[in-house]
């Protein structure tokens, strides 16, 4: 069909045939050598000796606070494993084993089933073996063929400091989860993996790298000798140094005792979290495997949700802190004259509904500065009408609301700043009005949801006038920045001075945070978020300058009442703590 005839000649055909014969004969020759000439050697090796690869472990990295205090340490325990193919009469052997391990037959069968990975792979049968138990098994070695014990590190929390929420915990890897894990870390069922908090976030850094020993074993699995030259050593995981100051953390934890809520303190310049408290909390020891089912259920079903890290996953109405968003919009757009006053008589009517100020007697004539200081709702109800929904939402989102702060902790919640699309979807095209929702938004109420850590990011943006370091828990993580927020100096200065007045001027809602020390300049804003489920949530965001450093605080006390009377005093206590320990904070820098 095609034009060109085959030009292949016999010589080329024979050359290729020769190469084919040569290659295959070389292979057959080698097979003959292995299978016939060296048969005895390989056969006896296959019968008697087998090279077994034994995984070796090294400790997981420790977790330290910024001053080097150990927060999370390792604690060596021993586990007992069995190779299923050696278990000729499982029930009989388990019956003998049960009393030594202080357990019963059913429990042993349950564990066997849980940790079974295959006939030739060890399954975990017992954990936390005491020295006494090990020696009892060792004495009766012949009764327990195929059983081995190996070292297995668990976590221990040495200081009374036991911060479940950001430290997180380890969990056993089981067969179902393995496919979803990072393959390069070589997880096996029964090993531990960071499951929450920084243990999860920094799993790769904290986890040891496994090693391999090659040992020759006989058909009974007895190790004959170790092949030294082929070893791969195991390496311990790296330590993790947190930016947390454990003394400050303990102090703040004391402040929140018996309360529900969250307090976070950060260093504004570096974004380091110095303290993060979520209350109520729980004891990390519950993950040590000795917790009864009853206690577990109690923890899981507790209405106060102690397992929840409120600091990053707790969603709250934002409250009055968002009046600052309206303020910034008004200032940037030059929409109102600063001296422009509004009369507050305690209530105002829009569309047939009455909207109230928290001060039922009214604030009288207030200008913008006074409205911030006294947190006057009426002023903002009125002035927010001058803004568009889009510009208000854009400003709020610029400050990081409705997005993750990207703090190095898992399970951060994103919150919500509702926009036009949201309202239309939620209430229908005609079920809402722009004017109506702005009334809610400006007070940080309605559909708005924020996390405390977003509040912290917000105040850090203000404290650093737009160039803000990303929040972080890991002290050694490089400082990086959020997208800069650019407003005129006039706007920033105005906000600063108003926030200063909130605490320091007569009639300011935050006066209870006022500090007696002249060294400390405190700026802040209180918030009281209405909450249909009970008493209002008290909140406070603020920052203070001390010894050329800036520290920021966010406080939320659930159902605490008013921000000025509940949250502000806590802020004052924290500021006093910094003053009393200011030497330490000087030395730290």
């Amino acid at each position, binding site marked *: 069909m095609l034009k060109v005839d085959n030009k292949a000649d016999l010589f080329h055909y024979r050359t290729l045939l020769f190469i084919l014969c040569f290659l*295959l004969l070389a292979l057959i020759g080698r097979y003959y050598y292995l299978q016939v000439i060296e048969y005895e050697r*390989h056969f006896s090796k296959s019968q008697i000796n087998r090279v077994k690869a034994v995984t070796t472990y090294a400790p997981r990295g420790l977790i330290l606070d910024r001053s080097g205090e150990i927060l999370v340490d390792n604690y060596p325990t021993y586990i007992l494993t069995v190779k299923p193919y050696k278990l000729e009469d499982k029930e009989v052997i388990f019956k003998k084993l049960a009393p030594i391990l202080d357990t019963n037959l059913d429990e042993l069968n349950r564990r066997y089933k849980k940790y079974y990975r295959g006939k030739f792979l060890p399954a975990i049968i017992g954990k936390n073996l005491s020295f006494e138990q090990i020696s009892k098994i060792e004495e009766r070695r012949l009764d327990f063929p195929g059983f081995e014990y190996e070292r297995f590190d668990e976590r221990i929390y040495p200081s009374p400091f036991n911060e479940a929420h950001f430290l997180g915990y380890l969990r056993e890897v089981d067969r179902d989860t393995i496919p979803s894990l990072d393959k390069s870390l070589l997880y096996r069922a029964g090993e531990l993996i960071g499951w929450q908090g920084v243990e999860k976030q920094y799993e790769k850094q904290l986890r040891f790298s496994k090693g391999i020993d090659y040992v020759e074993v006989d058909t009974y699995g007895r190790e004959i000798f170790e092949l030294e030259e082929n070893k791969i050593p195991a390496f311990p995981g790296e330590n993790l140094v947190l930016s947390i100051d454990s003394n400050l953390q303990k102090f703040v934890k004391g402040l929140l005792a018996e309360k529900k809520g969250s307090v976070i303190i950060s260093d504004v310049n570096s974004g380091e979290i110095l303290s993060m408290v979520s209350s109520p909390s729980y004891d990390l020891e519950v993950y040590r495997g000795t917790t009864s089912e009853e206690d577990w259920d109690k923890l899981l079903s507790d209405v106060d949700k102690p397992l929840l890290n409120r600091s990053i996953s707790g969603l709250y109405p934002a409250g009055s802190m968002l009046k600052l968003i309206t303020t910034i919009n008004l200032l940037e757009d030059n929409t109102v004259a600063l001296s422009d006053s509004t009369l507050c008589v305690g209530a105002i009517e829009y569309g047939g509904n009455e909207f109230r100020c928290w001060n039922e007697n009214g604030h009288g004539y207030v200008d913008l500065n006074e409205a911030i200081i006294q947190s006057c709702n009426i002023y903002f109800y009125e002035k927010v009408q001058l803004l568009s929904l889009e510009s208000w939402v854009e400003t709020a989102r610029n400050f990081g609301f409705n997005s993750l702060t990207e703090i190095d902790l898992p399970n951060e919640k994103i919150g919500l700043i509702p926009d036009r699309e949201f309202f239309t979807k939620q209430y229908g095209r005609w079920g809402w009005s722009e004017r109506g929702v702005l009334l809610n938004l400006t007070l940080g109420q309605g559909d708005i949801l924020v996390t405390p850590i977003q509040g912290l990011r917000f105040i850090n943006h203000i404290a650093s006038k737009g160039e803000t370091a990303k929040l972080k828990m890991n002290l050694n993580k490089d400082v990086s920045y959020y997208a800069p927020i650019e407003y005129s100096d006039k706007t920033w200065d105005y906000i600063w001075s108003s926030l200063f007045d909130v605490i320091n001027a007569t009639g300011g809602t935050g006066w209870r945070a006022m500090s007696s020390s002249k060294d400390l300049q405190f700026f802040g804003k209180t918030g009281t978020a209405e909450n249909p489920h009970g008493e209002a949530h008290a909140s406070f965001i603020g920052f203070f300058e001390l010894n050329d450093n800036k520290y920021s605080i966010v406080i939320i006390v659930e159902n605490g009442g008013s921000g000025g009377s509940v949250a502000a005093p806590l802020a004052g206590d924290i500021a006093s703590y910094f003053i009393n320990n200011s030497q330490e904070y000087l030395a730290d820098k």
Partner: protein
Amino acid sequence: MSSNNLILFSPKDLRNRVIVLTGVLLIIGLVALYSISDNPLSIGSSFFRQCIFILLSFFAYIVMRTIPLKTVHDNSTTIFVGIAMLCFIPFFLPQVEYTYRWIDLGFMTIQPSEYLKFALVIVIAKYLSNHQLEVKSKSIVIIPGILTLFCAGIVLNQPDLGTAVIVCAPLIPMLLWAGVNGFIIFLIITPIITILAASNTIFFSVWAVIMFLCFLMFRPNFISGSVLYFANIFTGLLAPFFWNNLAEYQKQRILTFLNPDLDPMGSAYHIIQSVTAIGSGGFFGKGFGHGSQTQLKFLPVQESDFILSVIAEEFGFVGIFLVMIIFFLFIKTLLDIAFKLSDYFSSLVIVGIASILLSHIFINSAMTIGLLPVKGLPLPFISAGGSFLLSCFIMLSLVINLSEN
């Protein structure tokens, strides 16, 4: 040509022989997979999956059989460019097992370089079969050489050393088949041997002498001869720098091969286990399902890379000898077809495909007995695995299609 009478079978007989031999190889593979599957008849066992893959590949074979030779010939460049471009796609996708080899389609993954092998063969065959080509001219090797290096370059960067070797394999047999001057083929082979020999001073010195004698024998002119000779020597001296550019695991595999005691990643462990399994099979083997090494799962990836070790342990030297004979007959039949065919293009393509299959067979077998480093190349028609099986069936359909003319 009177020599054609040396092969006594008609093309139709030869075609039938290829199909029968393929069937035998598939059955051998299934028997071995049945033996090592814990529960062969369950969905998800490698035996069951292989049966499905065979059915799917056979379907592809039937479809491919409908494509006429002329279409393949006329569109060879398009096919080649298309597949070569597909090979770039994985570089823009996330890595799969630390390489850029695979395209994940969701329901299956495909490895475009698997198909690059024979696309390259087709395009080179088309070039060499051009009747205007001056076969004796030296420049004839330039285009096939550049194309091969280009393809090998893509594959090496994925990185996939094994497939890169396979991609290069058909070049020399095809040039030889086309009647290219022996000296030119010698010049192509020399740098490869030079690089391999460069790792050892004694080997390198001996090779330098042999090369010198060959140059004398072929009598090129003095200047070009000297230049080529010293270029080779320099390549040998520069080889260590090239070595440093290999991926860590490739170095590891080669090093482990050269000295099994250096064993940080456990490749030597594979070889030790494989050699023990093979050796302990003896002359008659341990019997179906009785290979203690393979049944105890001492061998890793035994269903694909080390399937031959399973056969060797359970069926002994007799089994291996049989498999090798079948492979011999298979490749020889391909060469016979290539020799008998009247069409030059078809003949060249079949030689290229025979080279691809033979290099797979040789590298895989040599790996199981510790003659070559662990490469991860499967055995045609026997190893479990969908992508490669499909590629084998496509090559088979090409062979049958081409031989019908």
